[in-house]
């Protein structure tokens, strides 16, 4: 019977669908898929610049690192988000049932300051990350 069903599992790659659900998820996946393709190009350029050492290739390598840098930002944000989730069992940065969260608060009160520091952590980390990108771009400008 199963052949008669419409089964397109495993073949639904259209990420735009995600944009209607959650923009963060969409950006996360969209950038990740580009970075996968782009990473091999970037790797080739970096290796080439290490081997030959020409100035043009060096600049290209810096530029490709800068692009990879930008593309992995949503991934990195996701990775940083795990820390508050793990430390608070899903309370900070999670999407748990809102009534449950109030109930949990009455059972195991956690200090709001602690929670807001944890919730701010991924954003802080991303700011540092972007600052480093600025440094990289400065290096690129110097190289040019």
């Amino acid at each position, binding site marked *: *019977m199963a052949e*008669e069903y419409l089964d397109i599992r495993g073949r639904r790659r259209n990420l735009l669908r995600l944009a209607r659900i959650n923009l963060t998820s969409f950006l996360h996946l969209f950038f990740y898929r580009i970075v996968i393709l782009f990473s091999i190009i970037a790797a080739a350029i970096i290796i080439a610049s290490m081997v030959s050492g020409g100035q043009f290739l060096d600049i290209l390598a810096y530029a490709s690192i800068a692009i990879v840098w930008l593309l992995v930002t949503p991934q990195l944000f996701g990775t940083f988000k795990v820390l508050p989730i793990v430390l608070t069992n899903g309370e900070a940065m999670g999407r748990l*049932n809102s*009534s*449950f969260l*109030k*109930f949990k608060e*009455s059972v195991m009160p956690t200090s709001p300051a602690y929670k807001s520091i944890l919730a701010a952590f991924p954003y802080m980390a991303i700011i540092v990350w972007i600052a480093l990108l600025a440094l990289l771009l400065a290096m690129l400008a110097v190289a040019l």
Partner: protein
Amino acid sequence: MERRECDILIIGSGIAGMSAAIHASHLSKGKLRVCLVSKLHAMRSHSVSAEGGISGVLYGSENNDSPDMHAYDTVKGSDFLADQDAVEILVKNAPKEIEFFDHIGVPWSRTGKGSISQRPFGGMTIPRTAFAADKTGFFMMRALYDELLSYGNVEILHEHYVTSMLVKRGKFICAYAVNLADRSGKVLSAKSCIIATGGYGRIFNFTTTAHSSTGDGVALAYNSGLPLKDMEFIQFHPTALVPTGVLITEAARGEGGYLLNAKGERFMERYAKSKMELAPRDIVSRSIITEIQAGRGILHEESGLSHVLLDLRHLDPEVIDEKLPMVKELTMKNINVDPHNEPIPVRPGAHYTMGGIHVDVHGRVFLDEKRSVAGLWSAGESACVSVHGANRLGSNSLSECAVWGRITGTEAARHAMSAGQNSALDAKSIGDFYGEEDEKIYELLNGSGSVNPYKLRDEMHGIMEKHMYVYRKVGGMKEAKKRLAKLYSMSKSICIEDKSTVYNTNFRDALEIKSLIALAYVATSCALERKESRGAHAVVEHSERDDRKWLKHTIAVKRGDSVGMYYSQVSITKWKPEKRVY
């Protein structure tokens, strides 16, 4: 002919059905082949909608509670129509069942000491309703389903609709099920069968029950000529959300919610002085309707329904978030009302059917006045052991499902282990039965019928809402019976527009509507005969309870197109009927 042979066939996958499957499997150490048939996905049965909790005396010594007190409350709640031997079985086994559900993973709400919390409930003198927030039924269903998955001997047939069963020579032989996925029929033969298909609340339009609570198993028994008991007793839950009919749990009042009329009075003061909002459901429902009829209700503009208000504003917000999160979720999503800030519009809606298949205290289905069918049991809402009598107390239904799920599962397993193979005679009748049933399905789909099932159902809803609601009138019931008889004969020539073989819900709906109309007809016929007011059955002309004439169960049997009726004794052990005041 596709034939599936098993040892135990369980029709219905609610709490009773799945409990039975688990206990039968456990008892036989996973040897018996158990086949669980559900017309939905097994974990989606209507038991998931049970909210408030499950009753049972857990910490009797701490609360000054005892099973006897629980039994007395239940009997008094039932307006003394409950069979007291059955009630004693219920109260004795209920704590054991709560314990079992604890072991299989229900996340019971806990007190600070780590024991299971219990809350007050309508008609209960002591808080003895164990709960898991207000999703108790859901958590119990999930725990049962998950536990069931650990048994390799259980085959779950999701989305199979059982259209009829073969009972011959006083013995259950087989059932015929249609697979909704491809509309193929199969015969399920078994040594023991348990019917646990739930109630028929959908004979009403404004109801808290799921769209799937269509009493298929009850109609199945009725059409096989088996007796039904106390079909006239239909419980109306006082607090069904206006306009959708979604259930707002009694726990909302158990945790301290008030019922207010248009003037803002706690009107229950007038009707049940000591218990107030926590009087049994029949009394609260009648009080609400009396208030509305006296012009103290509020008209809901969009739906045209009059209602009263359930006020939770004075409750601690923490109580709502811990113990009533689902009430908040439902009101927010359905009518965009936050119970913290606004009262909830409610009115009585059909909720539970006390009546059902006539069974004894072991859940064995009666064949006639004395004998029972060999190899056939029924449990849960589809059965009428009569622990609920004329009116069920809140939270006793989950106990009943669990207790009789275990009893019937155990009995069915014992029977299946001792019973021999089917005889050649049975094999022949199974072949004939399959042919007949196949023919019937073909006839239904390709016959010359012209009646649209949905129109038929709407007409039935209109009749039931008008004449069989909280207050019933003799004249109205007479008219209802007459019109339902007509609908019943019309339901034989239903036309099914959808001819598809794959997941044909039009076909399933037609079968369900046929069951519903038959049951509505039976319920009305029984109600018309009972000339008294008892529990949920309130007749305007006979407003008093009449123990001399009517302390007896109504038994209804199919006699051609009409309903044959006789009566059976109520078993009374410890508690003599007395005046019912709260």
